[in-house]
């Protein structure tokens, strides 16, 4: 039995395998419609989510499986003070696989330690969000054809942006990748995120200026400054509008730039950019369903 808590739980070969499986699902969805028949996915979301929860549920339904779960902490025994360990032991009695989102960092690690079915981390605070990263990798594969030699710009809240942390971890394992980390001083990536970059001698630069680095990017991954990660409202208000991508700024970018965003966005990407073919964040949303289908198939060891 496998759990997926962070991208470190997957080898490059396994990631490639999941992407290949996703491409097969996109091409021939009918082949997979009964693959998880009589299997149940529990979605335990102790923090609000639209895309991640719905994409997990849609993924399971499209595989012929069923879904049960909680969509907020207040509707479960967590509100009564039940521990993660006890919640998970209970849910394991009812479900074949669990997708869990929790506001506290490391909660899925605790869940996995007590689970008798596979646990997928669907986001733990500002820490890891591996299925978003898999979504991002599938999107990059579809948009750019591969991963090698790309210059990846990550912009916005790089401190609390868990999608950024996981993406750095995954992308740094491909040869020739270079990172441009664009953030206000207060929202720079934490030191642990830079460990794999230093260990792998992966080139990266840190800057506060989006416009000056825009022409060199193959991918621009925008993120939202997340109000829920701040203890101090004043800090949030001061930093929330640090980077706003507009059509004017985009005139400096490559013609084949891929603009990505894990969504939800607030105002960091102007809606005027949405019709631009370089904007692929809504295609990214759709890809999220396909890669989660692939992951569920792999963890349940479903036979096709």
């Amino acid at each position, binding site marked *: 039995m496998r759990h997926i808590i962070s991208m470190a739980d997957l080898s490059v070969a396994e990631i490639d395998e999941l992407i290949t499986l996703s491409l097969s699902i996109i091409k021939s969805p009918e082949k997979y419609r009964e693959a998880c028949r009589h299997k149940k996915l529990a979605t335990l979301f102790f923090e609000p989510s639209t895309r991640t929860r719905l994409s997990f549920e849609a993924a399971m339904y499209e595989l012929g499986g069923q879904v049960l779960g909680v969509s907020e902490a207040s509707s479960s025994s967590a509100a009564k003070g039940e521990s*993660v360990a006890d919640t998970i032991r209970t849910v394991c009695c009812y479900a074949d696989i669990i997708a869990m989102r929790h*506001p*506290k*960092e*490391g909660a899925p690690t*605790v869940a996995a330690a007590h689970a008798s079915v596979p646990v997928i981390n669907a986001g733990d605070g500002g*820490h890891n969000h591996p299925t978003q990263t898999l979504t991002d990798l599938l999107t990059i594969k579809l948009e750019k054809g591969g991963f090698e030699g790309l210059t990846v710009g990550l912009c916005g809240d790089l401190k609390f942006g868990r999608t950024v942390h996981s993406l750095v971890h995954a992308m740094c394992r491909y040869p020739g990748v270079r990172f441009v980390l664009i953030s206000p001083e207060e929202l720079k990536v934490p030191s642990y995120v830079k460990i794999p970059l230093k260990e792998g001698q992966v080139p990266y630069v840190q800057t506060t200026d989006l416009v000056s680095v825009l022409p060199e990017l193959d991918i621009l991954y925008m993120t939202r400054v997340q109000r829920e990660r701040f203890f101090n409202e004043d800090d949030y208000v001061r930093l929330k509008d640090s980077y706003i991508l507009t059509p004017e700024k985009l005139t400096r970018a490559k013609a084949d730039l891929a603009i990505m965003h894990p969504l939800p966005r607030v105002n960091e990407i102007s809606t005027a950019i949405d019709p631009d073919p370089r904007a692929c964040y809504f295609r990214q949303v759709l890809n999220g369903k396909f890669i989660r289908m692939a992951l569920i198939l792999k963890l349940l060891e479903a036979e096709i």
Partner: protein
Amino acid sequence: MNIDSIRNGIVIDHIKAGQGMKVYDFLDLGKLHCSVAIIQNAASSKMGKKDIIKIDSNLDVDLNALGYIDPSITINLIKDSQRVKKYHPELPETITNIIRCKNPRCITSTEQQLPHVFRLTDRVRDEYRCIYCESKANA
């Protein structure tokens, strides 16, 4: 100053001067009923000054965890008044409930019964990180 030799027990030597009480507290030696001697600022040809702890009993604890406090410490195991083993504690791969995670966003901040476990992530820099949230340990 004379401290009686011990018959069966442990001598923790070459503790950095001033760190003796930290080791004493770390090993929770105040709870023991046997003789325990703390010698502070003892003369040392190697270190100038050092602290020493002598425990007249065999402790049932992982002394390697002392490597987290100071890997230059020397541990001497004494049996029948003879030294039978002398070694430096190695940096342990994991340390449990010795330091606490201070990240307010970590699951350990709300679930009090969870053990605080840190894993060695960089042996060169003696760096430990929380197994849950990956925050760096502050000694």
